[in-house]
C-alpha cells in the first residue's frame, strides 16, 4: 500500500530532517514508529500528507503503486490517506458536523457515489460517535475550538472513523489522553482496522501499543529508521530508552 524508499526531505528552505527513510506498509498491517523528540516523526507524517511547509529532496513514496508525491494533499485524502495530527488545528465558527459531512461527501463524490444530505449524515455520525463512546456534544461545536487536549485527539479519531481511510497515520494520538480515553481511542482503532486498511501509529508510549498490537515497531532516529522489530522492541525501549542510539 505504502512504499517509502530512501526518502530525504525537510523544510522548504532546505534544512534536511529526514535522512533516508525506507518503510513499507502493507494492507492489514499495523506499524508503529517510536523515537526521541525532534527526530522527524511528525515531519514524516506531514510529508506523507503533503504539507506545504515541507519538501522532498530525493527518494520516492509509492501509494498503491502510484507516485504519492505527485498527488495534491486533497487527492491524497480522497484516495484514503488520513493523518491524525499531533496538534490538531482549531477552526472557530466551523461546525464540526458540517465539516465532517463535507469531507465525507467529498470522498463519496470521488468514489462516484451519491452524496448524503445532512439528515442522513446525522445518523452516520451518531453511529460513529457511539462506536467510539463519544459525547454527542462534539457534533455541534466548532472544529477543535476550545477542545481540551484529549478531546482534540478524540475528534481526530472521530474523523478517521467517519472517513474510513485506507491508511491512517496517527501522530501521537495517545498523548494527553486519560486512561479511559486511551482505551476508547485504541478500541476505536481496533474496531476500524481490517484486512483492507493499515495503521501507522507514532507514539512515545508502549501503552497504546499494548492495545493495538502493532506487528512492526520502528525506531526513527536522526531522520532515519535505525531499527525495526516486533512489539517486543517497544518494551525493550521502555527499559533502555534511546541512550544506546545517542551514544553511537
Amino acid at each position, binding site marked *: 500500500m505504502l512504499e517509502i524508499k530512501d526518502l530525504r526531505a525537510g523544510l522548504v528552505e532546505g534544512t534536511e530532517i529526514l535522512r533516508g527513510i525506507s518503510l513499507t506498509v502493507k494492507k492489514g498491517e499495523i506499524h508503529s514508529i517510536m523515537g526521541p523528540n525532534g527526530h522527524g516523526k511528525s515531519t514524516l507524517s506531514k510529508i506523507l500528507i503533503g504539507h506545504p511547509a515541507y519538501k522532498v529532496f530525493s527518494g520516492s513514496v509509492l501509494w498503491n503503486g502510484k507516485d504519492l508525491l505527485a498527488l495534491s494533499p486533497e487527492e491524497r485524502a480522497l484516495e484514503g490517506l488520513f493523518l491524525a495530527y499531533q496538534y490538531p488545528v482549531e477552526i472557530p465558527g466551523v461546525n464540526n458536523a458540517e*465539516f465532517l459531512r463535507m469531507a465525507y461527501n467529498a470522498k463519496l463524490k470521488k468514489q462516484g457515489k451519491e452524496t448524503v444530505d445532512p439528515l442522513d449524515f446525522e445518523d452516520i455520525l451518531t453511529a460513529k460517535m457511539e462506536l467510539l463512546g463519544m459525547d454527542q456534544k462534539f457534533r455541534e461545536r466548532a472544529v477543535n475550538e476550545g477542545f481540551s487536549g484529549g478531546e482534540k485527539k478524540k475528534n481526530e479519531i472521530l*474523523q478517521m472513523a467517519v472517513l474510513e481511510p485506507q491508511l491512517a497515520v496517527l501522530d501521537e494520538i495517545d498523548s494527553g489522553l486519560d486512561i479511559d480515553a486511551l482505551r476508547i481511542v485504541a478500541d476505536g482503532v481496533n474496531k476500524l482496522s481490517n484486512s483492507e486498511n493499515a495503521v501507522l501509529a507514532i507514539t512515545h508510549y508502549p501503552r497504546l501499543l499494548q492495545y493495538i498490537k502493532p506487528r512492526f515497531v520502528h525506531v526513527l532516529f536522526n531522520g532515519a529508521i535505525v531499527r525495526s522489530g516486533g512489539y517486543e522492541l517497544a518494551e525493550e525501549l521502555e527499559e533502555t530508552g534511546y541512550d544506546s542510539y545517542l551514544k553511537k
Partner: protein
Amino acid sequence: MSPQPGSPESAFLEGYDAFKHEGRFRHINETGAARFGALGFPAKKHEMFTFVNLREFLAEKFEHVEGPEKMPSKDEIKPFVYAGCENSLVVLVDGRFSAALSDMTAHDGNASATELDEGNPALDVHAENDVFASINALFLTGGVKIEVTNEGAQIGVPIQVLHISTAQARSAGKVPAYSPRIVVNLPGDAKARIAVKYCGLGKAYFVNTVTDLVLGEGAELDVSSVQGDPASAWHFSKTTARQKKNSRLGIVGATTGGRLVRHNFDLRLEGEGAALSLLSLAILDGAEQSHNYVRVTHDAPGCKSFEHYKNILRGRSVSSVDTTVTVNAGAQLAVSEQLVNNLMFSSTARADTKPRLMIRADDVKCKHGATVGRIDEAQIFYLVSRGLSEKAAKALIISGFAKGVLNAMPNGPISADAESLLLNKLGE
C-alpha cells in the same frame, strides 16, 4: 456662526432654507441647524472621524426629501417583509413613517408604533455632538415611537422595522437624503425583539438614521439589524441606548457595505446590573467603507458590556472600529470586553482598530483584543487534508468566521436574510 459660502456646510444649509419648517418639529430643526453650524463637517483629524474618509461624501450634492412622492403599496413592500412579521411591522419609506403600511395587530395592544411626538425627550439635540445626528435633527419632520405598552409585557413576535429608500431624486444631479428617527421604549420587565432591515431600490441615496433605545428596569431588548443598502448608498446611523437597572440589551448588526457606512453607538449602562452586548459583522468589497464609532459608558455598579466586531475585507475596502468603554467612578465590578477580528483578502484593503478603556473605578474586569490577518493557512490545510478543495475550505472558514456574529441573530428569516445578503457577497 454661518458657514463659509461654497463650503459643504453651506450647501447643506441651503437645503435647509429651502426646506419648509413651519411644522411641529420646527424648534428641533432650528436647534439641529444651530448644532450643525457649530459642529460643521469634521476636519481631517477629528476625534470622532479618525478613520472615516468623507471626501467623496462632501463632493456629492444632496437634497433633503420628506417621504416619497407616492407611498408604495402593501404589495410593493411585501418582498421586504420577514415571514411572520406581517402583523408586527413598522415601515418607513424615504425616512417617513407610514402608519398605513405598518401593522402592529399581532401584539393585541401590548406594543404600538405611533407618530413621534415633538416633545419626546429623545429629541433634545442641544448637546448633540455628532454632526450627522445634527443633520438628522435639522431635517426632521416626523418619526416613529415603538413602545411596549405595559410593564412586564412579553412581545413574542419580532417587530420588523423596515427602512425602504426609493432613491427618487426630485432635482437632476442630486442624491436624495433621508432622516428617519426612531424611539423605542420598553417599560420595566418588558421583553421584545426588533429586526431592522434597510433596503433601497438600486440608485444612490443618503440615509441618516437616529435611533434611541430606552430600557426600563429589568427590560430585555434584542435588536438585529441588516444593513442591505445598495453599494451606491451612503448610510449613517446613530444609536443611543439608556439602560436602567438589570436591563439587558443585545444588538447584532450585519453590514453589507455601501459607498460609506458609519454607525455611531452611544450606549449607557445607567442602572446597576445592566448588561449590553454589541456584535457586528461587515463584509466589504470594492471601495466600500464601513466604520463603527462606539462609546459605552458604565455609570452604575455591576454592569457588563461585551462588544465583538468582525470585518471581512476585499478589494480596496476600508473598515474601522473605534470603541471606548468608560467606567465611571462608582461603577464597581464592571465587566467589559472589546474584541475586533478583521479578515483581509487583499493587500489594498484597510482595517483600523482603536479599542480603548477609560477607567475611573478600581474594581473592574476589562479586556480588549484585536486581530488582523488573512485566513489562517493552517486551518485551510487541515480541511484540505481531509479531502475538501481549497475553495470549499476557504468558504467554510469564512462563513464560520461570519457565523460567529450571524448566529446571534434570532433564527429564521432574519438571520437567513443577513446570511444570504452577506455570504452571497463572498461567492465568486
